[in-house]
């Protein structure tokens, strides 16, 4: 009886470990890919640097850990033209004037390349474990979230709308319009 229970437990353990391996192998072999159509006009690019730092100190832990990264991120903002239609345009053929109402600017992309993330400082007490790859990844993820949270303060959206207005004015002028008015919703 005891022997069969032991065999069943071993069998189940082996089966569960196999399942994990197979699912990972399947994931490695079958790439999940998707292509989406879009119409976005990026008008401004901000390159920003940020220090991401954390201290791991607590009364019940012997020794402390400190880590500091220097990160670089590229933010692009612009106009999403996917909903843009002739309803957003007013044309007067006689006077060659045009009024375009564009959607408000938004953050189009944030790129924080791994190679631009430098580990600048790390201190780990002798009785503590080093920061694991997972812990470092979690800290950098928080750094990314902090950058996104700061977007409204950076003035990137205002700059983007100004550049979008300049872009459309230049393009519509090249198309032959003499009076051009650009507005944002």
């Amino acid at each position, binding site marked *: 009886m005891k022997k069969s229970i032991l065999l069943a437990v071993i069998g189940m353990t082996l089966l569960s470990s196999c399942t994990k391996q197979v699912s990972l192998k399947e994931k490695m072999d079958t790439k999940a890919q998707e292509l989406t159509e879009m119409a976005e006009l*990026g008008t401004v690019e901000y390159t920003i640097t940020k220090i991401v730092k954390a201290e791991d100190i607590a009364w019940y832990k012997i020794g402390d850990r400190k880590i500091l990264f220097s990160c670089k991120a590229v933010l692009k903002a612009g106009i999403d033209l996917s909903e843009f239609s002739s309803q957003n345009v007013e044309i007067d053929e006689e006077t060659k004037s045009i009024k375009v109402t564009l959607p408000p600017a938004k953050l189009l992309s944030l790129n924080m390349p791994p190679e631009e993330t430098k580990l600048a400082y790390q201190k780990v007490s002798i009785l503590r474990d080093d920061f694991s790859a997972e812990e470092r990844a979690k800290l950098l993820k928080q750094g990314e979230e902090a950058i996104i949270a700061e977007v409204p303060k950076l003035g990137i959206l205002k700059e983007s709308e100004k550049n979008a207005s300049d872009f459309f004015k230049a393009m519509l002028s090249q198309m032959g319009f003499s009076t051009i008015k650009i507005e944002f919703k």
Partner: protein
Amino acid sequence: MKTLIKLILFIAIIAVGGYFCWQKGWLNQFLGTGSELKIDQTASIVEEVKKISEFTSVKFYEELVIDEKKASKWVDNKAGNLLSKLTGKDKKEISNDELVIIAKGTVRAGFDLSAITDSSFSIHGDTIRMVLPQAKILDVIINPSDFEIYEEDGEWSHEQVVAIESKATKQLEQDALEYGILEKATTTGKQKLTSLFKSFGYNVVEF
């Protein structure tokens, strides 16, 4: 005897209670051990502001799994070399240091319209002809939130992890090109720009 039973009962209650609190996460909450390490608040410094005119027409998304093995520092020495010769196994197999990362990346492609000038357009009545530049990859993005550490065995330095992540980024760009992202960006871009120019009153749009 009674005292011993009472003591065993007391220890059992404490153990069960402790296990229950641990299961519920109350113990971690009390000790602060389960809580995620938080970063300190720091300001973002704007280093450069650049005016761009990038028309993105397609976005490619892919999930990648990168499995990397390395020889741990305990076997990456003369003794490890000897052990490798004796067992006939690679040092990576002996040490079993492995890092499996799941990456979710995005590649954006379209046209860089910054070089457009007066000569890029020619207009005849309600027909507009535009000379478009070649479609190109505008961004290859895998941010920290797009990486998931699936398996971590052994010690992996920041530089080693960055090297693996960079490998994932290169793989993503390569896969996007093989998928035909540039051809799709050209076709879709022309469709989207046609729709834009038609809203400006042109009935025929040519590229």
